[in-house]
């Protein structure tokens, strides 16, 4: 245990839930994307907290790899948004049901 460990974990839980609620409720694809980044940030705080509490570096490497994956995700995701906008003139997620019969 490190000092204030519960507070760090509480912040990480609150950030995760805020991000998840935004991803559920908002319809703008870019805002949903940013909400996913908030969720990743909350998870990363928990990783670093446990990494410090256990005197280990594994959590820090996890956060490094999360950052790299988030960068790749941003590149591909925003290219997809540009394609969606070009095809339909909007990035409203409720209007996209291409995989539905």
């Amino acid at each position: 245990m490190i000092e204030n460990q519960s507070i760090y974990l509480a912040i990480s839980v609150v950030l995760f839930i805020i991000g998840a609620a935004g991803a559920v409720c908002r319809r703008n694809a870019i805002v949903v994307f940013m909400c996913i980044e908030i969720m990743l940030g909350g998870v990363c705080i928990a990783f670093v907290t446990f990494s410090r509490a256990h005197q280990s570096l594994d959590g820090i490497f996890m956060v490094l790899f999360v950052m790299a994956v988030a960068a790749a995700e941003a590149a591909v995701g925003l290219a997809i948004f540009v394609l969606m906008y070009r095809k339909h003139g909007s990035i409203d997620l409720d209007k996209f049901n291409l995989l539905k019969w």
Partner: protein
Amino acid sequence: MELVFLLICGGLAVISSLLVIFARSTLHSALWMVFSFFMVAIIYVLLHAQFLAMLQVIVYAGAIMMFIIFAIMMLNLRHEKDAKVNTRVSKVVGVAALIVLFLEMMLVSLGNSLSAVQGPITDTLVATHGRVAVISNFLFADYLLPFEVVSILLTAGVIGAVVLAKRVK
């Protein structure tokens, strides 16, 4: 003192994350997101992860948000008014499930049942060798394979983005 600083930064991170969701314009959401990333970086510093704090500012607040703001401006989304939260049944169910998840996670994180097995990275080791040296020793030895795989992933992501966004004749 540290506790006060933590509470201020954590509170600001939570408030700015809420403003990301509730801001009317997408660009305002993006700017609050940058603020939220800076607050998370300060929390990393409080956790003695200075290297990650710098990476957070450079990669997230710099590169990724530059991508997002670039996309917002290129798509010219200002005219879209969709800040109202719609109340379809599936979304109500989703929020209810999230509340249950929130209570569960708070119960675990506020309880004192989390045990801590102590690893080799003590504060004295970090103080004698330096944090970046310790991190690089582990990153380029134990984590070499994941490191290389992530670099392949980034290359594939860049190529995929270019191929997707290229205008098909």
